[in-house]
């Protein structure tokens, strides 16, 4: 527990939340207004889709390879091994296997936590 004096509290905390919500919504709203001008067959659309996928990929890999807190106590090779096994389940059947693959990875991670 961190001493309360270090924590932003009272009104300033709610003001921070208000600012954060405003900023987050602002980004969503800019997206809407820009999207009015963009055609889904255009070059800029293709480029932006690639940029977005790359951003999501960068975030995902960061969460797996360079996690903070509890996850960082799990060895990197275990994290990568579990990812590989889950992807194997995902690709093992041509039709959709998202939920089984997700469960495989989660259960493996929990089992590792129990066994260590």
């Amino acid at each position, binding site marked *: 527990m961190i001493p309360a004096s270090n924590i932003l509290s009272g009104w300033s905390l709610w003001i921070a939340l208000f600012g954060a919500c405003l900023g*987050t919504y602002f980004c969503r709203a800019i997206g809407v207004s820009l999207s009015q001008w963009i055609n889904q067959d255009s070059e800029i659309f293709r480029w932006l889709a690639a940029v977005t996928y790359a951003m999501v990929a*960068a975030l995902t890999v960061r969460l797996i390879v360079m996690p903070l807190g509890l996850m960082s106590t799990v060895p990197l090779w275990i994290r990568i091994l579990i990812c590989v096994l*889950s992807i194997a389940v995902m690709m093992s059947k041509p039709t959709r296997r998202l939920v089984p693959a997700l469960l495989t990875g989660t259960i493996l991670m929990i089992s590792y*936590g129990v066994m260590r």
Partner: protein
Amino acid sequence: MSSADQPYIDPSELPLEEPVAERFKSRHDAFWSGIKAAAGAPAMVLFAGMVGFGAMGKTNGFDIWFTTATSFFMFALPGQVVLLEMAITGSSAIAIALAVTLTATRFITMTVTLFPQFHQRDRNRSLYASVHLLAMTAWAISMREFHSIEVKHRLSYFMGLGLLCWLISIPGTILGYFLAGMVPAPITLGLVFINPLFFLLTFTEVKPWINRIAILLGCLFGPLFFILNRDTSLLTAGLVSGTLAYFIDRKFLRKKPGVIA
């Protein structure tokens, strides 16, 4: 008919953007299909993430109203975590708002790549309300499904999908708040891991080569830029990888027969 029932077809053999026969009978049907699509993996992932967030709020001494309001009004997990982390270390409200906004920039391109796929009739001011339901989970599913949904039903499908994702995050946060400290470490590991795993798995379903290359490059540049500068790394890694992928596609792939664009 859901696409899960279809036999597997090599994506490179599919004709480009083939117009589909009606997948849904009505907007109502599309909306409920969206809800149903959300009720599997996306809800699991968001719920787990929000339980983790609720627990984080409780263990750091925030009250339940503040923690829950964050999920309700922001509905963007990475930004919510930044908000709590910075509030704990006593950053100023302005600094917090700016840092959170920076993490939310991904919504700009997510919206710009998703919303032009709606029917012209649906692209009006009401989208400024619907956009709050957009998060990474709903985006990933919509990008995957939209090509097989007729244009006029896409918004209803997205609304069903996004609404359930948003609504599930509130009980998730509250549950996490009350369970904090009681959850054994192995379960917490599972809860934390399910989020990145979901996105990793959805990448295997991305078909266009330009986006596959972008994902691969993003995986390489992401950690690299993170070491260079933590706050702007997503934006820079995304721009560099996406632009490279675009040019690789434009120069080499686009004219090749059999390559899905």
